[in-house]
């Protein structure tokens, strides 16, 4: 066996790791690359300890098993709750962090996933709704027995945090990949923009893309029906639950990508737009001046006007349609 010393450029540092049940990787360039990345990883681990739904001692788990109707959160968690509620209002409830009971019911991560009964779904639906959360700084009042699930926003939040940390360390070039949520900092060391691929939603090959965008200093987040799903009787049951129906969203989109310097927002809005569907989603994004790439069930690729010049389409052979 031949072991090679990876003779990489001097100031490059990469670390691949698993946190939040997902593969992550950070590559940074610069003098303090190693320190910055190491610090970022411990930051992500700390967030996982606060927000994880699977760790019993996380703040979210503790709050979900609360006695009574109020809970006092740490500043970090309450800050993200506040932001999430903002996004819920903006998206008219399409994005919602109060779906814990429903996501437990639809356990798409399980090895033997089951389709819940209609009664279970309607019962669980009663225990959701962002309007049932009343927040006053770190104090949160729960109007019913709802459970929080912040999985739809925490990776984005972590991305933004890592961006801050790396910037503090003076790093001007880095790519952060937290389970598919991407943050690119600056340009590549060779002064060209970063090329970020958009996953082909209908190909099991993890490296299959429908095209890529060339960008700098921004975050790219995708929500799709292909990330976690099971198929039963020909129907695809995926992990993005529509807060209105309590079942996997049945919009005309199979993938929604948001490009924005705020990864937290991109994370929340990609989920929301995926649920809203093409027409409503595009209208919402245009009103808020946010860049996007949407893929419909009929394999049509829609790219926002601003982004067209930096998007390279590569999905023609795979049956995708892109009309410039």
């Amino acid at each position, binding site marked *: 066996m031949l072991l090679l010393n990876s003779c*990489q450029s001097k100031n490059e540092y990469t670390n*691949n790791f698993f946190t939040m049940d997902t593969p992550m990787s950070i590559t940074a360039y610069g003098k303090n690359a190693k320190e910055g990345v190491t610090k970022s990883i411990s930051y992500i681990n700390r967030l996982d300890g606060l927000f994880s739904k699977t760790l019993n001692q996380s703040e979210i788990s503790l709050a979900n098993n609360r006695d009574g109707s109020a809970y006092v959160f740490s500043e970090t968690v309450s800050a993200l709750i506040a932001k999430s509620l903002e996004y819920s209002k903006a998206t008219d409830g399409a994005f919602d962090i109060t779906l814990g009971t429903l996501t437990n019911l639809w356990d798409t991560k399980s090895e033997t996933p089951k389709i819940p009964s209609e009664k279970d779904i309607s019962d669980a639906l009663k225990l959701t709704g962002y309007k049932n959360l009343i927040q006053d700084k770190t104090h949160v009042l729960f109007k019913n027995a709802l459970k929080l699930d912040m999985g739809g926003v925490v990776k984005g939040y972590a991305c933004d945090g890592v961006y801050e940390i790396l910037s503090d360390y003076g790093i001007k070039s880095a790519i952060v990949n937290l389970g598919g*949520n991407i943050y*690119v900092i600056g340009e590549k060391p060779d002064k060209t923009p970063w090329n970020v691929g958009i996953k082909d939603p209908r190909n099991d*090959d993890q490296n299959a*893309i429908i095209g890529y965008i060339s960008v700098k200093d921004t975050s790219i987040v995708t929500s799709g029906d292909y990330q976690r799903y099971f198929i039963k009787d020909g129907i695809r049951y995926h992990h993005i639950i529509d807060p209105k129906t309590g079942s996997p969203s049945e919009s005309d989109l199979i993938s929604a*990508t948001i490009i924005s310097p705020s990864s937290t927002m991109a994370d929340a809005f990609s989920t929301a737009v995926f649920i809203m569907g093409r027409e409503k989603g595009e209208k919402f994004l245009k009103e808020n001046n946010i860049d996007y790439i949407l893929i419909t069930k009929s394999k049509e690729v829609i790219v926002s006007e601003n982004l067209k010049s930096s998007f390279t389409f590569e999905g023609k052979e795979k049956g995708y349609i892109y009309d410039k």
Partner: protein
Amino acid sequence: MINKIKKGDIIVFIGVILLILLISVITFPKSDGDVVEITVNEKTTTYSLFENVTIETNGEYNNVVVIKDKKVRVSDARCPDKVCKNTGEISKKGQSIICVPEKMIIKIKGGGKIDGIAN
């Protein structure tokens, strides 16, 4: 006399042999992109893409990774979802195979065209 080998022939012959040696040295596999990085449970081992080797990942599910003919694939996946095996072969810089249950990341190092995939 046509058949007789002349001085120039010998120079040509030696020149050609030297040229071939030179090209072999230049194109000998050594660049950064030909390194395969396999990370399992935070532990990273590197291999050359040019070697033919079978690796047991020794994680929870002990998947089998094969590097052969400059291609990397998961040949035997004992993990429940088999996503890593379904990814098939990778051979280009920047491509990767990820297995979530096994906590495994296989990556061909070096700057490919695509720096990351939003997923």
